[in-house]
């Protein structure tokens, strides 16, 4: 199910659309506390608000910088490009949407995969970017992540995937997107059978078919604070049951309370938490 009704990763309380990617302006408004904060300072804090610690959007490229040791990322399967298998047209042709998203984000599709080092531990690493068609999973994201899992299995590497997807399975590729969920889950099942360690990190937002496949299948599931995580989008639920949703529903804290994630990890601590987990699991 593709979820997520807004095209932006988050919306500030005053209704203004926050900028995607690293902010260009000198100042920016925090979507969490509305404080005007110095952009440079925010960037130094890995896009966390210096005032309230709200975890803002981070691009896939910046994720790599935050989590992997400098210069160690080696990209795999960069040659995979999205196509338009259905000839999908809504208000816009999918093929044009892909071109504009590629131009805007500098990504070929919503995921980057490869290998790299985390505090000198070699890992297979994948990250989705919630800015590229809402971080939704189509054939390319599914194929890249499946190949990543298969290489991690072959090379016996710990696997780390950082998810950010408000879109879940990508509607524009129809049933093919849905089937990517089964494809990756099957690859992860084999990886697990071989004794592989998979650390899944959920970030804001992780919804729909992404949440209902690889993101939930980690041996360890970590989440950034206050991320929106769930199966059905809040608006879908509200439309179905016609009551207002409780405060904090579908947040990381809500999931922790209900037993679905192992730890909430602040962004600046993520790298060392992953390294520690790998050590505990002896990988």
């Amino acid at each position, binding site marked *: 199910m593709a979820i997520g009704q807004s095209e932006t990763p988050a919306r500030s309380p005053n209704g203004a659309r926050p900028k995607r990617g690293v902010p260009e302006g000198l100042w920016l408004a925090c979507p969490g506390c509305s404080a005007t904060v110095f952009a440079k300072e925010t960037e130094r804090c890995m896009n966390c608000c210096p005032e309230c610690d709200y975890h803002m959007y981070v691009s896939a490229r910046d994720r790599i910088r935050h989590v992997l040791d400098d210069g160690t990322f080696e990209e795999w399967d960069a040659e995979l490009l999205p196509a338009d298998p259905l000839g999908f047209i809504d208000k816009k042709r999918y093929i044009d949407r892909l071109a504009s998203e590629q131009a805007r984000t500098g990504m070929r599709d919503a995921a980057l995969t490869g290998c790299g080092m985390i505090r000198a531990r070699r890992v297979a690493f994948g990250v989705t970017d919630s800015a590229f068609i809402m971080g939704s999973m189509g054939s390319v994201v599914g194929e890249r992540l499946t190949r990543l899992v298969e290489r991690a299995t072959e090379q016996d590497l710990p696997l780390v995937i950082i998810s950010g997807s408000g879109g879940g399975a990508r509607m524009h590729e129809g049933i093919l997107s849905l089937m990517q969920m*089964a494809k990756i889950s099957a690859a992860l099942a084999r990886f697990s059978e071989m004794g592989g360690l998979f650390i899944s990190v959920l970030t804001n937002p992780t919804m729909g078919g992404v949440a209902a496949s690889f993101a939930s299948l980690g041996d360890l599931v970590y989440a950034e604070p206050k991320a929106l995580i769930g199966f059905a989008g809040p608006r879908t639920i509200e439309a179905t049951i016609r009551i207002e949703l409780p405060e904090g529903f579908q947040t990381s804290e809500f999931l922790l309370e209900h037993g679905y994630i192992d730890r909430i990890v602040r962004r600046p601590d993520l790298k060392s938490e992953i390294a520690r987990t790998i050590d505990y699991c002896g990988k």
Partner: protein
Amino acid sequence: MASEAFRLDFEEPIYALEKRVRQLEATEPKSAQLHEELRAKRRELADVTRTVYSQLDAWQIVRVARYPDRPKFSDYTNMVFDEFVELHGDKFYGDDRALQTGFAKLNEYKILLVGHQKGKTLKERNECYFGCAHPEGYRKAMAKMRLAAKFKMPIICLIDTPGAYPGIGAEERGQAQVIAESMFTMSLLPVPIICVVIGEGGSGGALGIGVGDRVGVLQFAYYSVISPEGCAGILWKSHKFAEDAARALRLTSDNLLELGAVDDVIEEPLGAAHRNPHQMATRLKIYLLRTLRELLEIPEEELLARRYARFRRIGHFIEEAPACDLD
């Protein structure tokens, strides 16, 4: 015969002829002329039905798939299987009514049957949330499928759901996690698994019991990443564009076969399954028996390798020759 309450507008010419045929059949005594007219009307009815059903668009097919009189899981448990011994409960939270599991007999084969139940009466429909399963449904299905694997019983899953239930309790009890875990589990079960979409193949709720060695779909069923209404709401900003979304999503059986999402399309009787549930059940039974016999011939390791490969190859993308100017 279609009940008066739920009529499909595109079936109007069929209803009119069906009514006329019924009138003629009821007229006694029948003159030679009347017999002749009856024969002609029956022929016309068959022709019109064939024409209507050969020209359905994607949205009309979705409506046939959802049609209240369409045979459901509970009909097939009676018509396809010799026995259905329901096994309840996930032994953790509850017994979901939208996803039912149990032992069943398919001729000489003892199997585990798993299926979505939409209900027939309003009471039943409410009990099973119109076929939308909660996490306890998927937990139950997983538990019974593991049981089947332990005792070497093949598994048959009949899929018919608008989607997994979107609600507070469902989220609290890990809807996303159980669907993921179910696909993960099914990919490794060392017994044959046959999945057939008999009505609605609604997104993750369908795929949650949809990882099999063979996946079939009835001719007028659909299988989609999202409901046409949901897709229209997001991409067209209005549910009114469901018809356009249905077309764009390529969710009909012929599209699914072409895209490699399903392996087989099971042809429906003239005028779709709801006109002749018994004939539909017979065709489904033949399909299940034939497929099961084929799968039982395959050694376990090979079966699992093929199941993996079946899903592994799905997807459509462009793969350029590795270049050096990627950035």
